[in-house]
């Protein structure tokens, strides 16, 4: 554990919302210490002078890869929907996405 965590408990609560993870109080406490320790280790990277060094997002020098625009078989819709937790009328079914009208 580090002396001065670079990451606060409030940061962890905020990031959990961004990540769509419901965490328990115990998980928030545990992650605050553990993530702070990993970030402390990553201080070597964060503190480095990299001026003039371009970022690498990917090991291959890729350009857009396009296939020919021809119709070909795709996954069977019924088979795909059969794997869903809920489906209706050929679509995935989810709980409501909007609140009640004011």
């Amino acid at each position, binding site marked *: 554990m580090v002396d001065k965590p670079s990451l606060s408990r409030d940061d962890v609560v905020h990031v959990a919302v961004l990540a769509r993870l419901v965490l328990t109080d115990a998980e928030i406490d545990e992650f605050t210490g553990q993530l702070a*320790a990993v970030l402390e280790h990553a201080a070597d*990277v964060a503190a480095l002078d990299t001026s003039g060094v371009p970022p690498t997002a990917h090991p291959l020098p890729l350009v857009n890869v396009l296939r020919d625009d021809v119709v070909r078989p795709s996954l069977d819709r019924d088979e795909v929907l059969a794997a869903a937790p809920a489906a209706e009328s050929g679509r995935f079914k989810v*709980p409501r996405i909007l609140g009640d009208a004011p």
Partner: protein
Amino acid sequence: MTAVEIAADVRAGRRSAREVVEAHLETIAAREQEVHAFNLVLHADALGAADVIDRRVAAGDDPGPLAGVPIALKDNLATRGIPTTCGSRILDGWRPPYDATVVTRLREAGAVIVGKTNMDEFAMGSSTENSAFGPTRNPHDPSRVPGGSSGGSAAAVAAGFVPLALGSDTGGSIRQPAALCGVVGMKPTYGVVSRYGLVAFASSLDQIGPLAATVADAAALLEVIGGHDPLDSTSIAGPAPRVRGVLDDGVEGLRVGVVRELTGGLDPDVAARLNEAAAALAGAGAKVDDASVPSVGLGLSAYYLIATAEASSNLARYDGVRYGLRVDAEDVTAMYGATRAAGFGAEVKRRIMLGTYALSAGYYDAYYGQAQRVRTLLIRDFEAAYAQFDLLLSATSPTTAFPLGAKSDDPLAMYLSDVCTIPSNLAGHPAASVPFGTGDDGMPVGIQLYAPALGEPVLFRAAAALERSAPR
């Protein structure tokens, strides 16, 4: 028997695929309860596939270069109609509607899929203790871990359950368990093996590769699974690397550099095996010297920022909508949160959190952006080293297999297991771990060889030479 021997016998009709598969299923039945290499053993499917191979041989057909060879697949490779869990509750019971390209190619080559192997959840871990379905144990000592995340595949080969297995390697997940279990494990150049049907962890780092008891078997497997695939837009154009034909070429005249920056943190017995391996290659005619890759020490931090950032994005798809687990709630946002809380284990949550933080407003440049620049520095350092050397050499893991539970409470200590393997993933280069003797505890030690991009032929050439010179 090796995979190469089995395939030769089955193709020639000297041995039936059924007797081969039955013998391996018996070995599995005898020891699987202790080892727990598999999440699923496909008894009936495997015997059925073996019978098809035997009928083809009887009819005068050639079933292919892996005819009748039993193989195990890491449980993050999509298999049509067969559960594919990634070691996670969130995919428990999911049956993919398609086969991964590697699975299609294995079937076409006559290989017989006998099961899906256990793994750290979504390949996040170095011990296979992070599986939702319980840990895998090291066949050499069941009180110890097999390494990870492809620990089930490595243990399956080490226990003699199968001669071949596939794993995936994002930061060492093939090579480190191969080292800890005393088998051969190889990560190909990024783009050599199609990732279509590999459940994504960190898309710019992930690569599928072989685990085998011998270098020759790993070479045979790579030739089957490699080569361009139009279904993966990051697949390199061209055929699979030709590696079977170079295995007897030796290392005479090859320049091999021992990575100086990766010798410091090794356990003394592992360091001793590394020195012996370097001496063995020199004895076989290689020119061995110290090499320097100065930024290799920054690789671990850069990796854990890049891999978690990519993972936090890739794992957004587990939202309880299209497949897998759903925990119902009053609205869709609450359903996402509750589903992910119930479906993901602690390490996956930890990495999603770290990656989300590294990408979040105010921290992106300091963490993710900096890590991407370190990736450039590392690639430049490798380029400089390969101007002087044909191959680089290090240990695969700083330690031999550790006891179950030894690092479970300290994520950073677990991450340090990967310090020697991560650089190849960041650079996209091929690397292989070859068994080389044992540590003071009697557990296997693996030595790692690295080559530049598309250097598979020279890599296999040296791996075969190292295998020939390894202590028996």
